[in-house]
């Protein structure tokens, strides 16, 4: 029984990061209507930014969160402004798909060139601390990660609801042409949205750096997980992504207790395919 409780606790902590990556993906989809296939690689970039801040300027990954987020925000805006907006005008799904896949390969290998394929870690004041709660253990950095997820979710919600740019983002998401007629500069809104998505990834990356190591291919795992998260929660649905992240975390940790850790990926992807197809079929029957 205690293994199960431990698995559930771990599931919540792993799921927190998935939730953040998923929120970022779902935000980008909701507003830009594009599926971002370089999500994992952006997360990896965020981790390297956090690592570089630590290695070069001795900034603790935890306290470096705002800085990492700011750098990633700028980077995201540039990516959107230079590459993606151009291809969005063609109105071809496949172009965006291959473009973001290409960007992902580019990021991964530029990092491989600069940082080599070594595993790198950053030490934080919270690293390796474990909280003992009776029968089970909770790692402190993972708990912090979970708390940050909640904070980011609240901040994002408030930002979208009350600020001017947040309102513009929601307007663009609802109706692009209508927003343009009202004088909203949708190109800027797109860039800002992508930037915010990247900034959220920066936060998630910093949290990951508290207890995980970074290497150029680290994003692959999280990128695909992000898709599962948003599929669980519904594409474009921020609350859904939060819940989906936690559910996926639970599915993984509890699932690996049941089917063994080697086959957990197969289980996760099988569930993902079932949900994706099941949802669409259900929608088709209703419509």
């Amino acid at each position, binding site marked *: 029984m205690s293994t199960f409780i431990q698995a559930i606790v771990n599931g919540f902590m792993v799921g927190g990061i998935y939730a953040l990556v998923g929120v970022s993906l779902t935000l980008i989809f909701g507003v830009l209507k594009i*599926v971002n*296939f370089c999500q994992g690689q952006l997360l990896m970039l965020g981790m390297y930014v956090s690592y570089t801040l630590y290695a070069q300027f001795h900034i603790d990954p935890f306290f470096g969160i705002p800085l990492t987020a700011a750098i990633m925000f700028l980077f995201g805006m540039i990516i959107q402004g230079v*590459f993606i907006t*151009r*291809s969005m005008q*063609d109105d*071809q*799904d*496949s*172009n*965006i*798909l*291959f*473009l973001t*896949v*290409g*960007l992902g*390969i*580019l990021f*991964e*290998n*530029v*990092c*491989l*060139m600069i940082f*080599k*394929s070594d595993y790198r870690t950053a030490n934080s004041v919270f690293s390796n601390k474990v909280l003992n709660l009776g029968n089970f253990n909770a790692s402190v950095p993972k708990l912090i990660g979970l708390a940050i997820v909640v904070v980011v979710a609240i901040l994002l919600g408030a930002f979208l609801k009350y600020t001017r740019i947040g309102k513009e983002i929601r307007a663009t998401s609802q109706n692009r042409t209508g927003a343009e007629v009202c004088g909203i500069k949708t190109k800027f809104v797109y860039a800002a949205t992508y930037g915010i998505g990247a900034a959220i990834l920066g936060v998630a990356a910093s949290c990951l750096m508290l207890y995980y190591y970074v290497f*150029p291919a680290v994003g*692959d795992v999280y990128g*695909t997980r992000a*898709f*599962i998260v948003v*599929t669980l929660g519904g594409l474009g649905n921020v609350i859904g992504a939060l819940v989906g992240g936690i559910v996926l975390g639970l599915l993984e940790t509890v699932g690996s207790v049941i089917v063994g850790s*080697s*086959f957990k*990926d*197969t289980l996760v*992807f*099988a569930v*993902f*395919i079932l949900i*994706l*197809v099941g949802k*669409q*079929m259900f929608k*088709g029957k209703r419509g």
Partner: protein
Amino acid sequence: MMKKRFGSRHIGALLLLLILALIPVIIRNTYIQTIFILIFYTASASLAWSVLGGLTGQLSLGHAAFMGLGAYTSTLLLVNANLSPWLSIPIAFVFVGLICMLLLSPCFVLHGPYFTLVTIAFSYAFLNLFTNWDYAGKGQGIVLPFGAEDFALMRFKSKTSYFYIALCMMVLFYIVLRLIDRSKLGYGLKTVREDEGTANAIGISPLKYKMIATFISAGMIAVCGVFYANYFRFIDPEIMAESQAIEYVLPAIIGGIGSVTGPLIGAFIIVPLSQYLNAALSSVVSGANLVVYAVILIAVVMFQPTGIMGWYQNSKLKKKLSGFFDNLDRKLGFDKSQNA
């Protein structure tokens, strides 16, 4: 469009083929031959992908997994039952084609990027499954039995034999794709690609056509897998990774998605380039060759999304070339049969 009869265009194509076939005779360099084998292999895989991705418009990034299934089918049959790879070619085609058709058939309700996501999920699931499956050698992979040269076991000492097998595969796939492209099936697939509602309305069931396309496409790439296993004589689950699938899609993107000749041209451009970059750059800085690779992909998607064939269709070069061939036809007297 008027149906082209046998003419100077065909003679030109046959001449090109003859030149290709003579390469091992003229160039004895094994390295050059290896590059050509890779070109033929990549072109075949890209042609196989085109049946589903190009003609039917279902952009799959799971074809590396289908290729891996073919490679594993053939290898396991060879290792456990000593079955000749030549016989496992049709077995792999039907077996992998059926499996993929059945697995993907419920997924055809999904459109655009969602379908791509499912194929990525399949490739990860298969990768995970084969990495942990005892029978299939787990993550270490399987080494094919070495030994004396044996035609029945597709085991050759010289690269030249593999060169001709790969060339035959590519030519065969190209002809198959050409035939599909101009058949009723091909027009059905293209209708599904352009507009599923219309297809449904005129009695073309999108589900049925997508399933047929998946069967052919997955079966063809499984054959590529059989060749891969017997050429490299070693397989491991990594051949199923999504990053591998991009290698099969990239020639089609560069050549022009949806065109039949595109994947061929794309492979002839990208494979030598990436081999050269591999040799020249990866020893200096690892990853540099893939950076160039990614830049090419991004540049093509941003500036020439229809690929080389898309440019060629509206270019002066096409006018000149077809004028030249028409002229040749008239001089050689192939034109008479059309007028009569």
